[in-house]
């Protein structure tokens, strides 16, 4: 199918076969020569050749430390690193690249905010509001902060479909609330939370909002300025970029006022043994030699996604999710977990009489990679009364044929285990 353009000028279709050709890892045969069907994209996505090449080229031709050397390679590396930051800033609609901080990933971004902004603003008796569908990375840093400060978490419930209770959220915002930390998209259910509305609610009471975008950034068009979020976090490896690199976006005035996170390296302006002054944003939060290759690789991933057309990707993924949702119902005893009206490409399910681990193991033997278990969202599983689910999570390179293979394999799994 050739790419086409709709009346608004957006690219709305794309050629999935051509896209797949960009991803070398997808064309492997595993075990006894079975074709790999990779449906664990919420955990991490595969990488397109352009990202792999960019990282290799960096190490082959440009490798040097940045922002210090006066020499040729250091200039190249510094420029590439700065360019990656610009690409990411444009990608998320950040007003200025200095508001885009490179971290190791979503988890480190959240920990950074908890350790700086959190320590600065949260005190005894204060509250941090979370949702019941958060994954551990957006629970534990706040829990640690609360223990340290004598503060507490307030958890907003979700209903049976995996939809957040907005009224309960509104009720839980009080004069003691110091921050709302919420997933844009749930990793276990695929629910898309109405973050714009949540931000408006919180801001009406002067409460800042951190959005965990780890599962959103690869599926949805995100504009942090439009959202008006105070912090936005995501990881490179879930959006076709390298592992070990991620982003913390923050509003300039908040970032300026926050104390440094770690000491050393680029974050320093001047050090004497009496006193150290800190560098300007974003370097204040990038202690030590950063993951230069990772940042540059992430920049390449951003450029790759831009090239495909974000609207076209979203449209294709929606169609695929709808197809998969329909086809999965054919499996006897299968029940989808997470049926929010607004969701993205996560299919979490349980099958009567089938333990998720058994299903995951057998699917793996048939070449199909899915995730099983609690998806690092144990409180959510407890809420739903499940030990875990089987989760197939889709990416832009997945196909209807792969969904068919999953459904067929699930039929076999059911036959074997019943």
């Amino acid at each position, binding site marked *: 199918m050739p790419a086409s353009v709709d009346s608004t000028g957006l690219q709305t279709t794309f050629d999935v076969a051509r896209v797949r050709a960009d991803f070398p890892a997808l064309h492997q045969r595993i*075990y*006894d020569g079975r074709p790999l069907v990779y449906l664990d994209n919420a955990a991490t996505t595969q990488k397109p050749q352009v990202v792999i090449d960019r990282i290799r080229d960096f190490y082959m031709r440009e490798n040097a430390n940045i922002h210090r050397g006066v020499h040729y390679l250091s200039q190249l590396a510094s420029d590439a690193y700065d360019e990656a930051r610009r690409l990411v800033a444009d990608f998320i609609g950040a007003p200025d690249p200095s508001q885009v901080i490179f971290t190791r990933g979503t988890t480190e971004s959240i920990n950074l905010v908890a350790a700086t902004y959190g320590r600065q603003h949260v005190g005894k008796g204060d509250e941090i509001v979370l949702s019941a569908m958060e994954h551990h990375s957006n629970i534990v840093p706040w829990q640690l902060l609360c223990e340290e400060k004598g503060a507490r978490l307030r958890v907003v419930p979700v209903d049976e479909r995996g939809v957040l209770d907005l009224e309960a959220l509104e009720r839980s915002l009080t004069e003691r609330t110091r921050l709302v930390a919420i997933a844009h998209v749930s990793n276990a259910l695929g629910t898309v939370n109405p973050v714009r509305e949540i931000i408006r609610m919180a801001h009406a009471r002067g409460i800042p909002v951190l959005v965990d975008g780890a599962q959103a950034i690869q599926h949805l068009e995100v504009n942090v300025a439009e959202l008006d979020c105070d912090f936005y976090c995501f990881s490179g490896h879930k959006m076709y970029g390298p592992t070990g690199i991620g982003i913390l976006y923050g509003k300039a005035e908040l970032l300026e006022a926050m104390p440094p996170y770690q000491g050393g390296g680029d974050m320093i302006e001047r050090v004497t043994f009496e006193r150290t002054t800190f560098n300007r944003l974003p370097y204040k939060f990038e202690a030590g030699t950063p993951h230069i290759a990772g940042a540059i690789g992430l920049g390449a991933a951003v450029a790759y996604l831009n090239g495909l057309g974000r609207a076209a990707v979203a449209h294709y993924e929606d169609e695929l999710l709808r197809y998969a949702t329909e086809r999965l119902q054919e499996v006897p005893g299968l029940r989808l977990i997470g049926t929010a009206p607004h969701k993205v490409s996560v299919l979490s399910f349980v099958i009567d009489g089938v*333990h998720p*681990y*058994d299903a995951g*193991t*057998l699917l*793996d*033997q*048939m070449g199909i990679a899915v995730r*099983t*278990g609690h998806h690092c969202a144990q409180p959510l599983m407890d809420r739903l009364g499940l*030990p875990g689910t089987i989760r197939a999570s889709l990416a832009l390179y997945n196909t209807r044929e792969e969904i068919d293979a999953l459904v067929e394999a699930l039929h*076999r799994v059911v036959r*074997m*285990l019943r």
Partner: protein
Amino acid sequence: MAELHNDTIEARARQLVEEFALFDDWMDKYEYLIELGKSLPPLEPEYKTEAFRIHGCQSQVWIRPEFRDGRVYFKGDSDALITKGLVALLIRVLSGQPPEAIVNARLDFLDEIGLKAHLSPTRKNGLAAMIEQIRRYAQAYLQASRN
């Protein structure tokens, strides 16, 4: 399952390796493992407690030892069938053996079946935890019988 006292651990393990060698396809091997799991008599609910639970498994696993006439007998269960199959393999090879033999057993048969290569790392950890717990029980009985 018949408890043959005169069978050594090695003989029982060899038997299992031969049984698994009959299947070329890994799905068939898993099917057999699942059958072994299904045919393992369930552990009585009153023993499915924290005391007999093995940690380190993704699924829930319980193994209960009993010491009679100088031998250790094991019963076990799991909520997942493949895991239960692994429990069944260990029980078939190790139950009814003298504690000393269990403590010293090399259990290469799991490698020879090829199971370890085909188990995910988390499941491998679970299997290792089961073996360790079984050895710990045997070690305790060995100690007790020497005192």
